[in-house]
């Protein structure tokens, strides 16, 4: 038993804390906070401060911490702090302060609407990601803080578990959410969720302005008109949700289920309306940015090498025949279909 526990503990520690370069987490931080800033910048949370108290139905979190619906002017101030913190976290300035501040503001501002009659789930992953990043070292690289530290003579940022666990924790929470949604469907409805007309009816219902957002297309009723298509979609949805946790342990599964999950959320938005954009933003943490950047760097260097070699040939031709060299130079500077770069 002890040996088994040791093995589990060892696997846990390796999964979350094996050293990784800072780039994956840092680039994800830049993209996540940039997208969050762009998404939340036009949003106004302050009107929640003007809503009738009869509609105040606090969630457990707000009840435990006795958090009230603050006056509109105060909420307005909090949202300015929130959006500023998102921008600072994106560029990596005062990151160790900006990320916890963004997290605290996210808990209040994104949690506030949930106290008015219905809990919606579009922002929950954003809040959890903010909580994870708040205690992370995501600002060590690709940041103004890092650049300033380099100028002060900081030694190069070495691979560390500090750059592994936040990404892996975000993966785990994403997988838990997808799995929970699939499990709920089977728990409450069993296979009837797939093999009944449920999804077809849901697709039609959402044409009656009953969601938080309007469907981006009118394809829902068209799909609903073919029960087999709606059932196939239901099966794919439940399959994607239930098997999503495979992404935690398999790179191949990541290649299938992460894009499938994103397509699933975009599909919901297009056919039914619910606004899962914040959830999609969190997908940036699945991309192995250090590998992507290494490929880009290799491609750029190869291109430079090719151009340099071509120039050497031109210079040699120039020495032999100036007219031919001019033609070659023109061919290189304006590549056509017949002359690949």
């Amino acid at each position, binding site marked *: 038993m002890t040996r088994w526990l040791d093995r589990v503990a060892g696997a846990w520690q390796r999964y*979350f*804390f094996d050293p990784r370069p800072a780039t994956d987490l840092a680039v994800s931080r830049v993209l996540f906070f940039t997208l969050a800033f762009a998404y939340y910048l036009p949003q*106004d*949370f302050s*009107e*929640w401060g*003007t*809503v*009738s108290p*009869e*509609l105040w*139905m606090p*969630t*457990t*979190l707000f009840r435990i911490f006795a958090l009230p619906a603050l006056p509109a002017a105060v909420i307005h101030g909090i949202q300015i702090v929130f959006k500023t913190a998102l921008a600072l976290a994106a560029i990596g300035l005062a990151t160790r302060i900006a990320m916890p501040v963004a997290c605290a503001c996210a*808990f209040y501002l*994104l949690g506030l*609407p*949930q106290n*008015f*009659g*219905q*809990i*919606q*789930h579009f*922002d*929950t992953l954003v809040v*959890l990601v903010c*909580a*994870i990043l708040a*205690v992370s070292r995501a600002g060590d690289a690709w940041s103004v803080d890092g650049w300033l530290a380099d100028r002060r003579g900081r030694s190069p940022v070495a691979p*560390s*578990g*500090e750059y592994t*666990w936040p990404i892996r*924790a975000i993966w*785990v*929470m994403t997988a838990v*959410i997808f799995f*929970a*949604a699939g499990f*709920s*469907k089977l*728990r*409450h*409805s069993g296979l009837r*969720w797939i093999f*009944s*007309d449920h999804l077809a*009816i849901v697709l*039609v*219902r959402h*044409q*009656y*302005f*009953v969601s*938080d957002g309007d469907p981006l297309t*009118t394809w829902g*009723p068209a799909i*609903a008109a073919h029960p087999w298509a709606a059932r196939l979609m239901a099966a794919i949805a439940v399959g994607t949700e239930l098997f999503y946790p495979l992404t935690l342990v398999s790179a191949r599964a990541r290649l299938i289920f992460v894009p499938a999950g994103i397509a699933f959320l975009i599909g919901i938005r297009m056919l039914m309306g619910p606004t899962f954009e914040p959830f999609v933003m969190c997908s940036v943490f699945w991309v192995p940015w250090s590998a992507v950047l290494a490929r880009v760097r290799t491609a750029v260097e190869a291109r430079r090498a090719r151009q340099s070699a071509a120039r050497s040939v031109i210079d040699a031709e120039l020495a032999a025949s100036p007219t031919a060299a001019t033609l070659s130079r023109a061919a290189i500077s304006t590549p056509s279909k017949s002359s690949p770069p």
Partner: protein
Amino acid sequence: MTRSRRLLANLLIGFLLAASAYDIVKDEEHWPFSQYPMFSRVSESRNLTWLRVYVVTSDGQEFPLLTHAEVFPFDQSRLSKALGAVRTRRDAQSEIAAILANCLDRYERLRLEGRHDGPPAVRMRLYEVKWTLHPAAANLSSPDERTLVGEASL
């Protein structure tokens, strides 16, 4: 990575997992943790009952509020569910009147600020609206039945 940092990370991951597992197992919801129950209960009824807010103009015309901007900061889903919850209370009638007065006040203020294109309103009404689902929602503006639940005026 220091031992204290590793401990902090382990505690956070453990807490996030434990709280999520609790909600999934108990089928409960403690935002931001949840069992994610949306759309999980099969409903094969082709009837739709919804609480919808309408505004009344000075010449007595009624318009349903369908856009997010018109019911801001609510949306159609949250507003209907919230009003449905209030409707089960003992003082529902007076509470709904107070809520509609508050919604009407905000609707007019936001309209004057140019934040939505709804018509000028002097009154707001809450209806319970019933439809038999049409494959293309062609009967959206002609429901089978409408029952007045409450109203408020400026």
